[in-house]
């Protein structure tokens, strides 16, 4: 062993121990790193708690064995709460969303509640900040205001078996007039829902 040599080296001046031999450039780099990370942390703190930003969080729990037949997800879809506010109950199941289509009027503020009776799924509405992990037994919730007319696919973003790539739905944001017209003859959407449930049952 080289112990004698190294022990001798321990007699170096004490101040070397204190500085750890940090080069001035290195010290500056460490300071810059710390400042950078503190700024980032402050930024997400402000974004997270002061800027009206929302993440899915602890919402409520459901029994995945009964959620498809009892309670609000037994009849998934959009419900009006009044004054431009809506809630949407969406069931993510292998391998479809119920409903497959969600028609909302422009400007609608929608509380979106999603859960799953079988496996984990993902729920991401393209071109929006709605992105949730769907976990059986848990309710995932986000609110979103749709203020652009168009079609926005919601895609299953978590692997859930062989037809995962076929699992998606569409939010159709329409004008208030079109929405009211669709409301009065709303049979199309409910038929689509029935079909998807029938498919799921057939697969089961």
């Amino acid at each position: 062993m080289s112990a004698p040599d190294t022990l001798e080296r321990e007699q170096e001046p004490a101040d070397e121990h204190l500085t750890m031999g940090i080069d001035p450039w290195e010290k500056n780099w460490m300071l810059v790193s710390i400042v950078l990370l503190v700024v980032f942390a402050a930024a997400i703190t402000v974004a997270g708690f002061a800027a009206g930003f929302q993440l899915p969080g602890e919402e409520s729990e459901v029994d995945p064995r009964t959620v498809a037949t009892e309670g609000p997800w037994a009849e998934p879809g959009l419900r009006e709460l009044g004054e431009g506010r809506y809630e949407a109950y969406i069931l993510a199941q292998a391998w479809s969303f119920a409903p497959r289509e969600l028609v909302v009027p422009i400007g609608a503020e929608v509380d979106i509640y999603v859960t799953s009776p079988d496996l984990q799924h993902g729920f991401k509405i393209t071109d929006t900040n709605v992105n949730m992990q769907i976990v059986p037994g848990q309710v995932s919730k986000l609110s979103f205001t749709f203020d652009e007319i168009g079609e926005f696919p919601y895609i299953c973003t978590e692997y859930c078996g062989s037809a995962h790539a076929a699992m998606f739905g569409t939010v159709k944001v329409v004008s208030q007039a079109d929405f009211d017209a669709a409301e009065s003859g709303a049979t199309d959407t409910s038929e689509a829902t029935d079909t998807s449930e029938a498919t799921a049952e057939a697969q089961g």
Partner: protein
Amino acid sequence: MTITERAPSTVGGSGYDLSRFERRLIGVHLFVAIIALGIGSLIGPLQTFEYSNVNLYQYLEPVLQSYYQGLSLHGVLNALVWTTFFIVGFTTFTTIRGLRRPLRHPRINVAGFAVMLIGLLMAAVPLLLDQATVLYTFYAPLKASWAFYVGLTLVVVGSWISGLGFFLTLHAWRKDNPGVRSPFIALAGVINAAMWQIATIGIAVQMLTMLIPWSLGLIDATDPQLARTYFWFTGHPLVYFWLLPAYVSWYGMLPKQAGGKLFSDSLARLSFWMFLIVSVPVGFHHQFVDPGIPQVWKWLHAVLTYGVFFPSLLTAFTVIASLEYAARQRGGTGLIGWVRALPWGDPSVTTQLLAGILFMFGGISGLTNASYNLNLVVHNTAWVPGHFHLTVATAVTLSFIGITYWMVPHLCGTQLWGRRVALVQAWTWFVGMVIFSNAMHMLGLLGAPRRTPLGEALYVPDEWNGHLLRVSIGGAILLVSVILYLVVMYKTFRAPKVEAALVPEVPIAESLRHPQLTPVWLDRFKPWLIAAGLLVVLSYGPQLVDQIMDMSLNSPGPDFKVW
């Protein structure tokens, strides 16, 4: 920048070299690792070709049933098997050669390898029979065969046993060398093993209390939310378990290969201790969009994730400074121009330099993932595999490949076959990954989901097509690279033995300052282990207790096989 020459460090020591038995032990770890990387990486490009609607799986049907079985094999073999077997083998090497002493209890390390191998074989059977097509995250209630869960558990248990062997060897060395600083590469390897032992508690609990009894039919159902929390307790520190051995090489070996020295022994150690503390309490950043976890905990883990960036930023400085020192010793000049003076003709160096370059970009996309507001845009999109193919699949894997370029001939007593072929391998990996990863990041920003055969997906807009094609092109280039790697390894293994002086030597970098000047507190386990334990309890304890108290095992999953 002032750099003072100092006396050489303790590197060299007694001159003990690996015994024939120790060479074989390390060799079998590398053998399993390289086979796993080979199979896993040959499957990877099949996924990328699917993106362009070229589905080769249909021709492979007796062997591979589906895209998802291929993806499960790719993930398990590359991210879990290649990494773990390589790391345990490499840490055996750095422990023995760092300390210049034999393993204290070689039987413990043999037992560790045996348990890992049995576990691998157990998990491989259901994977190959399409009974474990649950991807490498096996989210409940996707239900694989019990053999898959038991097998993976044994791989982890085996790595614990080997970790104990490393620790006892370091402990024995310390008794023989009181007051001497532990050699860096040996200490760093043991710190990584210690971090891994803390980190894998999560997955052990998930396996033993939920997935194994459930797959055996002892319990009917799972709690998927709790399972995710257990999984990510281990799942994020897992990436540091992969990364730290690459850092061992970047700090402790690459400077020597480049003709220089380790710039700062103290800061190298400090960054490893920081990784021990902050690697674990960050798992909720994989669960930012989960239900069932209050936002304040997500915020805490986001902030701690920034904390874990600090040692990586330290590493960036120290490694680049060490390389600059080496390059200037070789006559390099200029603010950036010195880079050209590095030994780019050495495939072991080139692989690791290219790995480091892409890691900078991987770090930036990692910071994006860690920022929970930005995470909302990219979570579960193609951005994420785009990110981790820069980190684990390049920073880590390409560095490990670089290490094998000196280590395999060293262990076999041969010389590296095909230096130019190995250089082409390094550059094709780099170029292929740049194309693949950039396209994946773009797809993610456009909203393309990860883990999905986008070639057959029904919702793909035209604007994704160009990126999908680039994913396939990147995959094709990477396929060439991996084939070249396997050829180089095979030929090196079979190459004629050469006399000892011609075999590649072990590159162990000296430190610019004598390691004995490093403060004692950077050489002690106890305070850092206590700090690590405390931080885990504070950052996970209350939320974990809450979820366990609230556990409802009511999720049986579908009653049919979903793949």
